[in-house]
């Protein structure tokens, strides 16, 4: 005999017979999201034209788009974008590797946790941006500095979420794995880490956001290349369209990164959503 989780044919027929639900475009979150952006840009463009506000303070969106195209075509914006992306993600992946490994170690060893708790309590609340002067003294202003500041930004959220995720694993699952003959290493690899994936992923989201902020901030302070450096330079020479253009690139980067994370989250969490 089999329990059937699905509706019976008769119940399905009743569901099919229901009148179709009337849906307006405003029920579509994508339309609402993108629509609000388009509307804001239109109001901005029309407002700027009607009021004749000085473009030094508030350039029109159309001017910003033209500036953006020009910067991509001849101004090396793509190179700066790629450099910033490299710095963010290289540091982020170092943080992901080290943070997950350390997090699992801390969560599974009382002694390590006793030591790590103190260090995390001391270092996590410290604004990482305040470490920039010290890191410049130690590492200079080149690649190692940028990767370090990016990794520092991401490592704490990843580490802390890994510790929490592993500690909150269902003890029943660990017992079941032991019952099926799992060794301690197999329990960590096959039970604790998969259990902690949603929490680790939440830490990755937070960490990547902090990495982006820190890398752009570091580029603004010491960088000769990268979006932060370009943003700072454009501000210094009062090229407001260029400032906005770089901000748009950063905002777009934020949207793309968030969407990719959403897609990965859905892919990894099929078992939660099904």
């Amino acid at each position, binding site marked *: *005999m*089999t*329990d059937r*989780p699905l509706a019976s044919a008769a119940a399905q027929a009743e569901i099919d017979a229901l009148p179709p639900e009337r849906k307006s475009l405003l029920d579509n979150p994508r339309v609402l999201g993108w629509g609000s952006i388009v509307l804001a840009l239109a109001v901005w463009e029309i407002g700027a034209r009607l009021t004749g506000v000085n473009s030094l303070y508030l350039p029109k969106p159309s001017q910003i788009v033209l500036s953006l195209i020009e910067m991509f075509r001849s101004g090396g914006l793509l190179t700066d974008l790629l450099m910033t992306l490299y710095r963010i993600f290289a540091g982020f992946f170092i943080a992901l590797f080290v943070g997950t490994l350390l997090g699992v170690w801390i969560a599974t060893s009382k002694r390590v946790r006793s030591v790590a708790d103190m260090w995390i309590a001391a270092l996590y609340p410290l604004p990482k941006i305040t470490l920039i002067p010290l890191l410049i003294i130690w590492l200079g202003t080149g690649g190692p500095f940028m990767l370090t500041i990016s990794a520092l930004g991401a490592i704490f959220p990843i580490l802390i979420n890994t510790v929490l995720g592993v500690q909150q694993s*269902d003890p*029943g*699952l660990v*017992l*079941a*794995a*032991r*019952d*099926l*003959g*799992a*060794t301690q290493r*197999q329990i960590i690899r*096959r*039970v604790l880490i*998969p259990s902690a*994936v949603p929490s680790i992923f939440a830490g990755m989201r937070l960490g990547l956001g902090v990495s982006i902020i820190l890398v752009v901030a570091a580029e603004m302070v010491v960088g000769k290349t990268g979006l932060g450096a370009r943003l700072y330079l454009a501000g210094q020479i009062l090229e407001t369209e260029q400032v906005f253009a770089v901000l748009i690139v950063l905002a777009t980067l934020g949207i793309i990164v968030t969407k990719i994370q959403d897609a990965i989250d859905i892919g990894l969490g*099929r*078992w*939660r959503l*099904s």
Partner: protein
Amino acid sequence: MPSPQIAVEFKDVGLVFATDPSAPVVALSQASCRFAPGKVTAIIGPSGCGKSTLLQIARGFLAPTRGTLTFRDEANGDKPTGRPTMATVWQAFNLFPWLTVLENVTFGLELGGNLSRSEREARARQAIAAVDLSGFESKYPRQLSGGMRQRVGIARALVMQPDILLLDEPFGALDAQTRLVLQEQLATLVETRGMTAILITHSIEEAILLGDTIIVMSSRPGRIVSEIKVDLPRPRSLATTQDPEYPRLFDRIYGLLRDEVMQAITAEQGPSA
């Protein structure tokens, strides 16, 4: 195939949890019993009496603080032998939610690393078919009803071909109808395979339906009050409850349990109650 010849013998086994030395908890007190090979032994008793503790000691997850646990090979003059293989079916199912039904059932086989992927899957599909879940191999536990999840739990234990099957209140989390159906299914599986099983349960009906022997335990500190043979014919099903012997057994076990449960309730309420 599992050997049905290993008996589990508890002799004066006790367990005291002394996490707080000023208030040690006696979880089990001087339990002596023998779980016969090829038979199902049901253990019944009030909540907190140490039934699951007994099971965990048998499984090797808890070490007794007194007494001895011995495994004896009946085919070899009842001589002591090494720990037989065991697998547990849990009340809370304990399925890995990120794995499909097939992956859950092959999990234990993969850990051993002795079988090829095709062998593992073939064995898992057999076990899944034995619990009537063919066609659900690619589903995740979340997509299944409680009864189906527990059948995956049973398949996951059976696929390991254990010498001894441990059933820790396997149907405690299920509704009454699903429970009846699964009790019948498990009774059939146990009878056809002639397996050694230890069943922890709160249900007298379940103990009679599945058990060859029923051990009744006292309220905490748990000790064994009585050992009752169940001579009802097999195969057993819901129709077994119509056998004239059934109400007699039921009343006897209930009579023993009632006193123990009342004592447990009084103990929980404290001396002022």
